[in-house]
């Protein structure tokens, strides 16, 4: 039983050894020269100006929700795509109907201005 998991265990052990050794070696062997630029939050030079924990506009929520709602519907196309030939015209017409319903919702979203940013 335990032998079935042997590859997994070896993988975990090797991963641990690799990760730990890299951190330890880098910590001990590398030279340390801290400068102000290196210690700042964004090394790219972007100045952090205020706290990150603040409220932001609700538009992000709207767009994210629209994305999830329309994105998740794609999942229903996978089973159809797998059985595309066997399902024939029945499957095709069902999928067309599904897309029409989805498109109708999409039209509604656009017309209501849910995706307008300004």
């Amino acid at each position: 039983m335990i032998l079935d998991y042997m590859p997994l265990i070896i993988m975990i052990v090797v991963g641990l050894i690799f990760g730990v050794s890299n951190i330890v070696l880098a910590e001990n062997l590398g030279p340390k020269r801290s400068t102000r630029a290196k210690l700042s939050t964004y090394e790219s030079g972007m100045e952090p100006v205020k706290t990150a924990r603040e409220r932001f506009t609700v538009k992000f929520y709207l767009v994210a929700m629209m994305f999830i709602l329309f994105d998740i519907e794609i999942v229903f196309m996978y089973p159809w795509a797998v059985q595309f030939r066997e399902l024939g015209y029945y499957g095709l017409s069902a999928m067309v109907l599904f897309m029409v319903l989805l498109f109708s919702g999409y039209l509604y979203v656009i017309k209501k201005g849910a995706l307008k940013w300004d």
Partner: protein
Amino acid sequence: MHIDFFGSLPLLVIWLALGAIGIAIQAFVRNNTRLVFGYYSGTLVITALLALITSAHKGTTFGGMISIGGFANYFDVLFCGAGLLAMFAARPYLQRENSELDEFYTMLVSAVSGMMLMAHANNLLVLFVGIELMSISFYIMAGFLRTNIRSIEAALKYFLLGAFATGFLVYGMSLIYGATGSLQYDVIASVIGENRSQFPTLLAIGAVFLAVALSFKIAAFPFHQWAPDVYEGSPTVVTAFMSTAGKAAAFSAFIAVFAVLMPASSLMTPQLQLMLAAVAAITMLVGNVTAVAQTNVKRMLAYSSIAHAGYLLMGIVANGEAGYSAITFYVTSYTFMQLGAFVVVGILERGNEENLQIDDYAGLAKREPVLAFIMAVFMFSLAGIPPFAGFFGKYLLFVAAIESGYTWLTIVAVVSSVVSAYFYLGLVVKMYFTEPHKEHSHVSPGLAGITLFVTVAVSIVLGLFTSQLLSIFGTWW
């Protein structure tokens, strides 16, 4: 795959009218509530007519996942009727609250289509989709008064507890699927009936989980705590709709699922029956006793609706044709009388929680004799007093429970009915035999008058057709 297009017409029509055309109309027509209202009431009328026309055409379609004809079509007509009545009541109510949006009617019709799917389900997956379609529409409708904190609070409570119950529902379904190897009702029924499940323990747990989730939807003890808050906080017309049609839909699913889970030959049937009997007894006692203590009419009616879930459960306990026919009859009369009672409350109510206390109904008979009379009819009918529909429904349920050997349950039901008469008749006494204690302006029901006329007529007349309806119901099971 063969599809019975004729038999599935009611479902196809309401989905296309809602999902494809209705949504597109709203995309292109702006703020034309009159058009949307007319369009959706037409949709409901046509769907109900199609359901009537196709009712004699029985069978299953879509690979056996959807059953058509008979029982399901009867419930279709009931849901469309209740939806239509709720729409008529909703228009004046929402206009008064300055919250009338096209989307309200969309959500209402979408809830109706979910209920129809529940009644037509012949497969656990279809049942799940139907329940969710109905529930998600209800969450939105409960919070429809967006600036009213009570409405939002009701929506949040309903949503969190409803989603929690959904978790139990699907977990129960997955266990039943694992134990029987199928989602189809007929396959599950034959596996259970012949006691040949591989995993009888999983099956029992799954059945209990399904009972828990459906008890939540009908607001039965101990899963009733959400109901008073949600029914009190939601807009009154929404409460009127979801406490009646929503409950009728949950019972249509309850009948179908428990006819599958409790075949007479199954070993676990007696235990399930006993469990449901205990739930029914406690539900009616808790509902009626707590209702006595209420001072808010909406909350009192909410507890009364919990108690009615208890009465209706007796029909499931009876586990047979008589019980199912009794439920179907009582849930019909309950839908009309409870919907009407809430609509009366909605007409008298003024924004900001005014006129919702029982004391505000003092002397209503002098100010609004017609409304008071209508409310009195609903109260008598809900209390189960003879000439009205509520009495015949209760009688059928009691007989069904006695015949299946649950005499003690019937005694509990009779006792709690007596308790319930106290607060129902208390309101009538308040309306007719006390003096008004403050000035009120005259109210005009508007379109809601149609709702009141129909509901009061059905509450009075339905009792006359008991035997005819029962003989129709008898042909379904």
